[in-house]
């Protein structure tokens, strides 16, 4: 059974890019266009991994991580934040909020799959 990944990203183009990169790697993908929607569907989707953009209207990705970590069921689900190389600060804040790691934009599809694969492998034995 391939892993299920939830993408939280407000840009439809970016969602599509991530989705195609992941589907090529055989992952199953669900999408949310903002953090609130993600919070609403996350229980139902029960993802093995979440990829969340940092910069989103309403609730940003970091806050999403923080909130998800308050759900017992998602305390240990890996969450990758999507950020740009320019924002080291976002990576730090993401870490502090409980993000597992980050992916920098722009990313290469293969590189994205590598990071995702690594994180899931680390997670799997637990």
């Amino acid at each position, binding site marked *: 059974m391939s892993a299920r990944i939830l993408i939280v990203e407000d*840009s*439809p*183009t970016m969602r599509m890019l991530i989705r195609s990169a992941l589907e090529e790697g055989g992952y199953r993908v669900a999408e949310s266009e903002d953090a609130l929607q993600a919070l609403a569907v996350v229980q139902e989707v029960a993802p093995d991994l979440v990829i969340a953009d940092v910069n989103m*209207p309403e609730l940003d990705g970091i806050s999403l991580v923080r909130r998800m970590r308050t759900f017992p069921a998602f305390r240990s689900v890996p969450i990758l934040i999507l950020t*740009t190389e320019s924002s080291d600060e976002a990576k730090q804040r993401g870490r502090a909020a409980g993000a597992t790691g980050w992916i920098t*934009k*722009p*990313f290469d599809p293969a590189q994205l799959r590598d990071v995702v694969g690594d994180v899931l492998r680390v997670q799997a034995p637990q």
Partner: protein
Amino acid sequence: MFFVEAADLVRHFEQGVLRLEHEPTDRETLDRIFRGAHTLKGLSGMLRYDRIARFTHGLEDFLTRLRKGDLAVTAAVTDKLLAAADALGTLVREAGEASPTSAVDLDESLGMLADVADIRRASPAPRASDAATDGGTLRVATEKVDRLVDLVGELAVSQSMVAELVARIGPVHGPLQEAVTRMDRRVRELQERVMNVRVVPIQHVFARLPRLVRDLAHAAGRHVVLHTRGETTEVDKSVSEYIVDPLTHLVRNAVDHGIEAPDERERAGKDRVGRVEVSAYQQSGNIHIEVSDDGRGLDRDRIRAQAVAGGLIAATDVLGDRELFAFIFRPGFSTADRVSEISGRGVGMDIVARNIEALGGSIGIRTERGRGTTFHLTLPLTLVILEAQCLRVGGGVYIVPLLSIVECVRPRASDLHVLLHGVETFTLRGEVLPLIRLHRLFSLEPSSREATDGVVVIVERDGEKVALLVDELLAQQQVVIRSLETNYRKIEGLAGATILGDGSVALIVDVPGLLASSRARPDRRAMAPSTTTGGNP
């Protein structure tokens, strides 16, 4: 997909900048602009649109300086941002067309953003386009507020759509119901507050009256003191603008026709100095304005004689005070002995009535011979939101302002009559009223041909009543009025349109118009109270 999104982002960016120009300190707008540039940067980087990526990178740096407060948002800044939006739009378009050449000199555009020397030199004060602060109060252009009012009105409509859709699902789980209820409350509150922004004390209107009364009294050789009460009563700005003329006419009328000459007053045992009082108060969702004088009162006999002379009534007709006094609001009707410079030419009172009607209000008269006259205006609190009664006529939903409904009754066959010329009447406790079948007026198929299956809605304007036959009474709700004429041509019997909670369009019945047209019919006389019978089954 990228190009659609990118074009959207550029457009939102530009709108954000325009907004920022008016509200330079609005953090949220700045954040939104930043987010747009950021998203575009990320996307163009991914998709290798290097020129866009490079430009948005520079733009992001510039915006970061604004966010950090390193630079204040000044006119020079918004100018730069708008230029950037233009450049960005061009870059996106060029990328979409895979254009080999570019109209944008990237280095120059980036240099423009990087060079902030001119901004630092410029005044740090934000461009005060049409907003000026003054000790905690803010002057804002009316049209800006109006736009807000419109939007909030539409929001309220959208909200009731959501509420209705949720209700239609049936019993839904708690949180959704709760969220809808909470949103409903917030929208209502928002609406009230926004409406409140437009509210001004009626003082602004009253302020001009003392001078007016003084000049009029002087010209007419009267001694008059003016008293005003309720100056702090708050009215919607639009209402306050529209009532200036009617109010001026009424006060003129009071001084010119109401108050007697000093000698005449003395002979009548009254103080030589007459008194005109203008007062305003708010009651049950309406604004009431009264203009009273302690003058001679309306002359019933003279009005009657004038009406007979004008062919409005027959000499033998028996009329109540209400019907009789209503004549003074007719165009060209005047009982003044002399034509003064300001009133008595029969213009004025009809304009008063027309303006008040146009506002969706009504006017009433109380008068006592030798003691004085009071004109009582009832106006809606606002002109945008209407307390409405929804009615079903055939398959359509129509709306009548709650303010104009006197009562609703189920007709009995014995109350319904057809007069000569096919005019129908409805008898309400002995009073014979013209009956209008709305479905006939609007050429609709009624649910039932039997009038007794329907409901009769009695509407009133200026003491005049008309019975409207409809199929069914539906809910009462607040609706936002939209003028029909902007979308359609003027339709007889309809005053406007609105969108209901379920998203359907409902038309607003033009009550004053219906009354006027029923009055205008040649057989109107057949309905005068003097001929109360007309039993034709």
